[in-house]
């Protein structure tokens, strides 16, 4: 916002800067040659949330009178990175995080890349570590698919 004053003695301009929020470019995969496979979640843009997509993170801190929204966001970011790193190459789609009371439920769809026993090892490890980290019970609900489910090619 730039304002100017008409006083000849005090002619100055202010500049107020915000960080650039590329609201038109976030979470959108642009149309390309047609060789890029894209999942349903990736194909629909953020303005479709609530219409054609659901929410990836479900908690009550965005309701009127509830606090802790920022902390939930930070936790979510950490959990997503943690899952991405622990189950590296296995995630077929974005992780959905649900909070029910004290319980933190992490719902993930995995590709059947590892043996089930290895999956269970990682599940036990993740649950235990995140429970101790966030001091609340953490449960993982996992579903597996043979390969990444492609919605369309862009």
């Amino acid at each position, binding site marked *: 916002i730039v304002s100017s004053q008409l006083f000849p003695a005090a002619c100055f301009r202010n500049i107020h800067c915000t960080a650039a929020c590329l609201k038109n470019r976030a979470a959108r995969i642009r149309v390309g040659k047609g060789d890029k496979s894209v999942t349903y979640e990736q194909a629909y843009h953020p303005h479709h949330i609530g219409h054609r997509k659901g929410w990836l993170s479900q908690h009550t801190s965005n309701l009127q009178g509830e606090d802790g929204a920022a902390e939930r966001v930070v936790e979510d970011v950490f959990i997503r990175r943690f899952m991405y790193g622990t189950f590296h190459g296995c995630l077929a789609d974005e992780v959905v995080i649900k909070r029910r009371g004290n319980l933190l439920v992490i719902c993930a769809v995995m590709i059947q890349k590892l043996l089930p*026993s*290895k*999956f*269970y090892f990682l599940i036990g490890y993740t649950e*235990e570590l995140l*429970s101790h*980290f966030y*001091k609340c019970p953490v449960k*993982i609900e996992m579903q*597996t698919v043979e390969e990444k489910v492609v919605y369309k090619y862009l």
Partner: protein
Amino acid sequence: MASSCSLRHNVCKSSRILRIHLQKSWPNRCFLIFCLFFFIIIIIFFSEEIVIPRKKTWSKEAVLQALASTVKRDPTASDSRFQDDPYLTPKTSSEFKLFSLSQESGRNAAKYFINTYPKYFQKDYAQPHIPCLMPETLEAQIEEASEAALIERIRMRRVKAAVDLYDQLLQAGTSVSLNVTNQLLDLICFCGDHDLARENVPEQRNEETEDVQDEPQAKEGRAPKASGLLKATWKENNNAERIFALLSEPNTHSYSALIRGMVKYGAYSKAFSTYTDMLNNRLKADVHTFNALITAAPEVKEKYNEKWELIVDLLKQMAEQKVKPNLLTLNAVLKALRHCGTLGKSQAFPVISEMKALSIDPSLASYNHLLAIFYKTGAPIQGQTDILQEVMNEVSGKSFTAQDPDDGICISLQRYNGLKVYIFFMSSSTDIKQLGHANRQNLVEELLTLMAREKHNQEVQESFAECALDIKKIYDTGDRGKVLLSWTAGSLSDLISVLLAAHRRQDAWEMLKLFKTHNRVPSEELLNKFLTCVKEAGEVNQAVELVQISAGFCLPETPKLIQRVQQEFELTEGQRNMLSDLEIQTFNSN
């Protein structure tokens, strides 16, 4: 109110008018009365009396109860430990164990990280505080070398730290009371001289505790063995013996701890020599010592009668020292008798009578040992069923609490109507898979023969049939090419006869096809039984097919079957021709 007042005025007015009118006309008196009644009714109607219904009170949990009634337990789901996905659901018992163990080892890996880097897990979000989600503070509170510190380390089960502290105390000259030393001995002998909690962690494994046969791998790459328990052995000159030697006046408790530790970790002959030392010091042993020694007795002697004599000797000494035997003592005797062969059979019942005489209730483990003594493969079935019946007389209707570690695994038999015996498994037929006995095949076959042998009434047959179908599933679900059990002609026949007796003709028919696929030959009486069943149902086609099957196997009784079918059934032209062809065929082949 206003309306009713005004209405009343109106009513009065109108009745006055009516009266004036009616005085003129006398025959209208009845009409007047009728009108008056009508007006009274209207007044009552407008008086607005409301009946309030009684208030319904709901309990505080009513909504939750209503919601809960809509949800039932899903009997087809796998255990709640596992994920609800077909790829991740265990299908065999070994997979079950593998997955639960891998999950456990994942948890242990996480615990290792949490306890090694506790500073990242200190932030306490939880209100109220949840102590189990904090990293373990394994540092002992009391630092200076004193008896209280020793007690604390014993309580925290830190064997190494406790032993070190004990040595420190002795070197410093402070005497440690006998009580505390006994507790220390108990700890060492129970834990086998290594720390319990850190076993799964490879880095913290000490060089000294080496005799480990299986180590559970905390990492992926190698699937942990299903029976991945650490089995340490008792080593020479370990801490327990050393500390014991340092004791000036060991008492019963110390000896007891030492002997039990030795027996637990396999040093059987040492246990006996320690026991002799104890007797030489004119000390009395307690019941736990005797239990341990009886458990160790079969391992130190070779021949059956020597084993038994040793046990009897121990029991006599027990009586001399006026030590009362308890349930574990007699269970240990029964367990030892399993290794005593035929001698075990003759001695088992006196033991049971002893139990009764001492008014000790036999637990599931006692029955398990009993069955194991008598239920050896190769023994005639007759004798076994009698034992089983008697056992089941006792077991039926009682509830058992787990009093002995062996109570876990048991095939349960239940008595029915005081006359017949029918078998049901304690949990589903996966239990049989989990039993993992080498003679599993024989067990299942004997089960089938038992079921097929006698003719029971309808209910029993029904449950037998259910059982039989379960058994069929065991045979069928081969685990990735590995066949668990293979069919024999006898077991197949028994299964089919059980199904037939329960009038499950369709299932029996499918089983009959299995004969061909598994290269087994059905017996004559089975086919005859089948034919009778088919005749009852009046299925002519099936009868003809039966004959064809029998001809396919080139059975010698095919002609007899053909005759039976021709006589007992009403055949069509085509079927008659087919049968006569078959007859000629079999005649030629004979």
